[in-house]
């Protein structure tokens, strides 16, 4: 019995309950507005799993938000609320688009170089907020939100510059083949590739999508974050600052420099998200009329993943699946796509009230 009790107290349990509540809430809304929730969920599930290419799309959708989720989660672990993953993502993406087009190198060097530059750009963007907080006590929530706008307009300024813009478009030139992460990108449209794809329907179907190495990079990043947080001195001091700033300072930890490093690492992860999206999928950065929301979705992913790196990977996959599969209910049954945002929002709402779920559990004990 004691083991079971432990299980029901764990954050995993609360997350599972919250996800179920979110789905039930979504079902109720669907009922109210006159759609059959079972039909809707069938469409969503089929839309995610019924073909290999759907699974591939789900993973592609999940990849950037896993990384922005890691970014936000890392900042949370160190006591910071990084709302700026959006802006850090944008600078990472534009850096990748520029470095992927203007530098030419063999792939083995080009890809790592672009990734490092993007991580650097994101880290720089994040560390501005970190520095302002460490030096002048500027709340990072405010400074990161403001920097999101700076990043957005900086991106548009660069993209629309004559030397950068692709003729007749609102985007940069496509990154060179040596910088992209898409599996077999040139081979799969060649004659050999097309005939191979006919013989191997499973992989052939996957290759219809821009399946890419981004997901592996995201998982790798999650493992690196896990190691930094749990196995290194840096991680220990970062977490110590997060848990209790004064105590950490008293214990001899340099708090200001830790805040800057924490924001830099967090920003670097979001910058990596931008790079992976550009190199693995869009191959360009475009002028943005408004934020695309990858950073904000990262906040949801971090919350659902309970700020745990592995949790972020799973939560990112869940969100990616809901985003991709959920978008299919509109053409199929006419239900609005916004229902997915409602479901994700409700999940986060339930997760942020663990007490409610615990209270429900206590009631059960009393009932007995």
């Amino acid at each position: 019995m004691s083991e079971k009790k432990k299980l029901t107290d764990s954050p995993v349990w609360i997350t599972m309950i919250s996800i179920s509540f979110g789905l039930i809430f979504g079902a109720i809304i669907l009922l109210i507005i006159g759609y059959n929730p079972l039909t809707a969920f069938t469409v969503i599930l089929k839309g995610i799993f019924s073909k290999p290419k759907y699974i591939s799309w789900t993973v592609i959708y999940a990849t950037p938000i896993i990384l922005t989720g890691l970014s936000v989660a890392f900042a949370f672990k160190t006591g910071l609320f990084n709302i700026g993953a959006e802006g850090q993502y944008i600078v990472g993406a534009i850096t990748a688009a520029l470095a992927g087009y203007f530098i030419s190198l063999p792939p083995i060097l080009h890809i790592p170089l672009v990734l490092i530059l993007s991580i650097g750009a994101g880290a720089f963007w994040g560390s501005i907020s970190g520095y302002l907080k460490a030096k002048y006590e500027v709340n990072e929530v405010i400074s990161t939100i403001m920097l999101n706008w700076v990043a957005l307009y900086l991106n548009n300024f660069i993209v629309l510059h004559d030397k950068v813009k692709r003729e007749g478009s609102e985007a940069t030139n496509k990154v060179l083949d040596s910088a992209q992460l898409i599996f077999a990108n040139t081979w799969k449209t060649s004659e050999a590739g097309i005939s191979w794809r006919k013989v191997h329907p499973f992989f052939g179907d996957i290759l219809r999508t821009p399946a890419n190495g981004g997901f592996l990079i995201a998982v790798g990043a999650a493992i690196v974050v896990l190691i930094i947080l749990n196995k290194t001195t840096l991680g220990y001091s970062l977490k110590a600052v997060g848990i209790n700033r004064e105590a950490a300072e008293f214990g001899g930890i340099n708090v200001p420099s830790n805040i800057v490093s924490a924001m830099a690492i967090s920003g670097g992860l979001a910058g990596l998200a931008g790079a992976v999206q550009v190199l693995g999928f869009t191959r360009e950065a475009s002028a943005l009329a408004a934020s695309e929301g990858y950073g904000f979705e990262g906040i949801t992913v971090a919350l659902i993943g309970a700020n745990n790196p592995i949790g972020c990977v799973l939560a990112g996959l869940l969100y990616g699946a809901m985003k991709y599969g959920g978008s299919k209910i509109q053409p199929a049954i006419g239900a609005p796509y916004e229902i997915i945002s409602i479901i994700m929002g409700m999940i986060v709402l339930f997760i942020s009230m663990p007490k409610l779920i615990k209270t429900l559990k206590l009631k059960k004990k009393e009932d007995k």
Partner: protein
Amino acid sequence: MKKLSILFTAMLALMVVSCNKPKEAAAPAEEPKQVEKTVSVTMVTDVGGVNDQSFNQSAWEGLQKAKADFGIDVSYKESKQNADYAPNMEIALDSDNDLIWGIGFMMADAIMEAAQNNPDQKYAIIDNAYENTPENVVGVVFEAEQCSYLVGYIAGRMTQTGKVGFIGGIEFFLIQEFEYGFKAGVKQAGADIEVLSQYAESFSDAAKGKSIANSMYQQGADIIFHAAGGVGNGLIEAAKEQGKWAIGVDRDQSSLAPENVLTSAMKRVDNGIYNLSKDLADGKFPGGKTVSYGLAENGVGIAPTSSKHVPADILAEVEKLEEMIIDGAFVVPNTAETVEAYTPVEL
């Protein structure tokens, strides 16, 4: 937990009860192709979404009208991010449609790629002309300079201060056509009328639209035209507060401020969609071409509510200009050079 489980059971029961039409659950992707089924047309919106008060909404209205008039199946798929275009094309393809629309030039690459990968599927795109249009694609463009010219003429004739304004969204050829058409129209009304022109670098930032509009009104402009999507809502708000004139775009925007919207330069995306969908249903799909809709095809025009504020004599002149454009008496300028070279025509 008891309460919880009661809740759960209740929900499940509700869902099962409501599930009285299980046949609808079939995924459209796997449905076998029926012989002689009704024509189905779907559209993929750009990131503006289907309720953008502008061309996506207009496009959907066009499809709905087509559905009502000749019974085709219609559906739409919204894009939330630029990265959604390619997968949305794929989803539209899987749901077995006769024609897939991409609404807006932002989808040009996605449509081109999808069309090359799926030569048997028909595609059409709004606001984009490809250099080499594949056989299964139709580009639909609108001669926006023509309606902009007409509202420019109205603005030029009605200004009291000798100054009018233009607010653009993001500066590129599609929006510049509005600007140059407008400038040419103003020039037609009077060579010494000044046009203040500014781009907001956004299609959604209404606050910025308002501040640009306020500064233009302060500089002495009394009529401002916009081609800036949501930014224009800020202009119309400023016009309302200051009691000045605004000119709407894309749809008849008079309803947003009936006393302050002088007229609107309408780009009839709905007509474009409607006409081409009709061609498709009649088996006359003009694949491999770019179709251009201007005044003659009722693809652009000024709002029907214009007569409310614009005096009848000016409207009569506008009508005359309209006829001359349709007859080809002169070509409305759509670049900086041609506006410079434009000499007003004899009315």
